[in-house]
């Protein structure tokens, strides 16, 4: 294997992206826009997959793109391009100005007030160039070691979708016609393994584990990740169905995060203002059990959901979403805040094109004191869910029905694996029925949740 050279990055044109973003805003304003906002994103990615000890894929590249949102009074439109040539950029600006003639006047449209704009001070610990510091062969070794640890863990691990190592960096610049210009860089690296175990009857099970960090120095060891991946896979062997029943259900942290995600979608200002959420109109009301406190914090140093400003150039902040079961705040951007007569919570998520949406900062459920083992220990018969399949969640009504697999709890212990079952209920009741919260909060992404127990759910099986 020859040494991988990272020329893609080194040879990158050192364009002044701040200047470019400001220039594009200026061009839009000269072209007749009443307000404008420009985003420039560039990024590099490296990924490698090693399968059964052999390199399977090696991918390395960089790209950049630019987007603009313009306002013609209360009419808004946006365009984007990957073509940074003079003519490409001219066409992007011109099309945006043209498009902003055909959209409707929306009294709530607009960029934030100048006084709201800004960027958090200080080092947020988001960028570490060390994610690219390993030489090519070492990166491949990270992937190889992760897979090997899984394969070596048990003879029943007979196959694999591979071990992988990924690294990426991103650079984002935002400028608008109030004179705001901000930028930040973020880095990311991860290792993962996807082993496959086979039982004596030939039936296979697959699972995975991973570690992700903003710096190589905080990445968990490939050996540890591979071992956990193997354990998670092995415990699924011999899975069976169970009879339909109403039992307590314990969600492991990975699947518990999906419940938290449903709360996020439920308090998302976009669905609130159009009444498309089962939580619309519930501000100040009790929507969950007393011990449920949910925080969104875009300011945590090193966090996966951290940034110095949101997608509209407003400094990120910490928002208490639910406090002891009472809904304290929706999550909003400028538009949805205006619609609801509230203040933005700096959760604007700006893609290249379109109206800014709403995204989480570091969004989590406040941990409790019990260990996962203690939570499971208190259940005579129940289900421990480790994976969901499918998308059976209706946020308008709160109806919830998802495919699941996991382990059956009997006498306070995890016993045999189960699969081909469903977990059903309604989110409105589920939040009240969160009866236990674990102490095992750990961020493996922007949304994190400790182990939780929810009562009153229907487990659908035979």
């Amino acid at each position, binding site marked *: 294997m020859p040494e991988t050279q990272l020329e893609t990055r080194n040879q990158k044109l050192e364009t002044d992206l701040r200047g470019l973003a400001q220039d594009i805003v200026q061009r839009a304003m000269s072209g007749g826009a009443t307000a404008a906002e420009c985003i420039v994103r560039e990024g590099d990615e490296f990924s490698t997959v090693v399968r059964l000890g052999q390199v399977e894929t*090696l991918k390395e590249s960089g790209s950049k793109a630019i987007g603009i949102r313009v306002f013609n009074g209360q009419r808004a439109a946006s365009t984007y391009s990957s073509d940074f040539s003079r003519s490409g950029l001219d066409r992007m600006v011109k099309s945006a100005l043209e498009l902003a003639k055909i959209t409707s006047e929306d009294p709530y449209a607009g960029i934030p007030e100048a006084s709201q704009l800004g960027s958090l001070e200080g080092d947020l610990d988001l960028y570490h160039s060390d994610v690219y510091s390993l030489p090519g062969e070492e990166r491949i070794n990270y992937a190889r070691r992760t897979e090997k640890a899984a394969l070596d863990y048990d003879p029943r691990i007979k196959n694999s979708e591979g071990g992988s190592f990924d690294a990426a960096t991103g650079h984002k610049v935002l400028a608008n016609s109030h004179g705001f210009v901000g930028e930040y860089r973020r880095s990311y690296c991860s290792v993962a393994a996807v082993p496959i175990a086979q039982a004596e009857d030939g039936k296979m099970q697959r699972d995975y584990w991973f570690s992700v960090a903003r710096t190589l120095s905080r990445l968990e060891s490939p050996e540890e990740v591979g071992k956990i991946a193997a354990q998670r896979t092995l415990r699924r062997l011999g899975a069976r169905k169970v009879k339909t029943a109403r039992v307590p259900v314990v969600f492991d942290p990975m699947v518990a995060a999906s419940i938290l995600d449903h709360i996020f979608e439920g308090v998302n200002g976009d669905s609130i203002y159009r009444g498309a959420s089962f939580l619309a109109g519930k501000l100040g009301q009790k929507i969950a059990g007393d011990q449920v406190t949910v925080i969104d914090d875009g300011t945590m140093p090193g966090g996966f959901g951290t940034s110095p400003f949101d997608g509209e150039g407003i400094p990120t902040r910490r928002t208490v979403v639910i406090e002891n079961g009472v809904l304290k705040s929706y999550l909003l951007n400028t538009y949805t805040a205006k619609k609801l007569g509230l203040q933005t919570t700096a959760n604007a998520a700006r893609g290249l094109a379109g109206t800014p949406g709403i995204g989480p900062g570091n969004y989590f459920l406040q941990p409790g004191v019990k260990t996962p083992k203690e939570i499971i220990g208190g259940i005579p018969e129940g289900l421990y869910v480790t994976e969901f399949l499918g998308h059976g969640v209706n946020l308008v009504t709160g109806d919830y029905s998802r495919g699941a697999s996991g382990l059956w709890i009997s006498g306070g212990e995890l016993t045999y694996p189960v699969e081909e079952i469903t977990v059903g209920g309604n989110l409105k009741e589920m939040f009240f029925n969160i009866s236990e919260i674990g102490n095992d909060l750990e961020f493996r992404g922007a949304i994190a949740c400790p182990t939780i127990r929810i009562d009153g759910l229907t487990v659908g099986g035979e």
Partner: protein
Amino acid sequence: MDKNRFFFEHYGLTERNLERYLAAALSAGGDYADLYFEYLSSTSLMVDESIVKSASQGISAGCGVRVIAGERTGYAYTDDLSPERILHAARTAALIASGPAKTPAVGFQEKPARSLYPVTLPSVDAEITAKVELVMRADTAARAFDPRIKEVRAGYADELRNILVVGSDGTFAEDTQPLARMNVGCIAKTDGNSARGTSGGGGRVALDFFFGEKTPEFFAKESARQAILQLDAREAPAGEMEVVLGPGWPGVLLHEAVGHGLEADFNRKQTSAFAGLIGKRVASEKCTVVDNGTMPWRRGSLNVDDEGQPTQNTVLIEKGILKGYLSDKLSSRLMGVADTGNGRRESYEHIPMPRMTNTYMLPGDDAPEDIIHSVKHGIYAVNFGGGQVDITNGKFVFSASEAYLIEDGQITAPIKGATLIGNGPDVLTRVSMVGNDLKLDEGVGTCGKDGQSVPVGVGIPTIKVDRLTVGGTAKKDLGGFMQ
């Protein structure tokens, strides 16, 4: 070679350049190299609260270079189509190989390909005001359907993708791929109750499709109808029961339960529950399932796949027997099977892999009403949200967005979103009746695999599955699974 030559005209590419890039890609050895040029322009519009809130247009262009050496793939891409950057990407991708340089074939051959979507004026170039009219009409029609319809969001999106694929084996393929769709989402509200409905459709069609064949009113009424219906839906039963799937979009069952498991990469690696089952019975003899990339105007269709191979109609399951896999170049080379033209990718930033196109079951002999009448207690599912499958253990899930109880052979009450869950390799063995009413979906499907999304189609006639697990929330009592 006298077609439109998009990249030759717009980026000054020549055959000589292409040969040079391929030579650079094979400069460190390797069995095969290819270049995928893509120029994608797109438009989208959204009406919400009866006003056009957003309009967007964009352009994305780039080139991906792939080098295959044995089972290894090196990949690099650039969004700058200058010769230096493409050569650089080619040399980066070449790092996967190690050995003496290979020489690519000299000269390119373009295989004859179909013309499945011959639009004269691609919708992306059509007047934006006509598209505004479409979304506004959808909004009006949905609100007019019933006063309980309180929220409507109607979207229109189109794109035009120009691609050029050249390979070191002399492959040369160009295609211009239009794609357009409308979506309408409604929320119905009464005091204390609300429900949603969604509908949409399109294909590789021109804008006039939405002014003739499938109007905004068609999608709007369908969306509103579902939302109103769901207001009165009761809780779905839970447990194993007979399930009848309606025709069309419920074909997503085939996509999840068998389609993914038959993608060649999983079978080459022996990670699919279907690995090694060729020639074996995986469905009842009433089931014949195909993947057909050659249907005119369809969302999942392609003249050539993203590796330049013409698409085809591939029989996956014939009268219950597993016949073949869906293959791309890499898998066909390594497995020694034919390339079925299923190598697809999301964009120039992505490595191609075997993917479905339009996957459907051929019609049978049963009248749909006879199928319903044959069910004592079960559910009739006619619309679905999404689905998902774990290809290794074969378990799949999909969620019904419109379903009804069947009691003593009659369709009775609508039920709330129920999840259906089963095992891919045996669910079709329990298909006891197949209707004569094959229907393809309206053209809304997007399939995700390894983080790559591609447009697909699905279809199915009315079928009866004798036993499938339904994940509802209703309590069981002595009267069966009624509330």
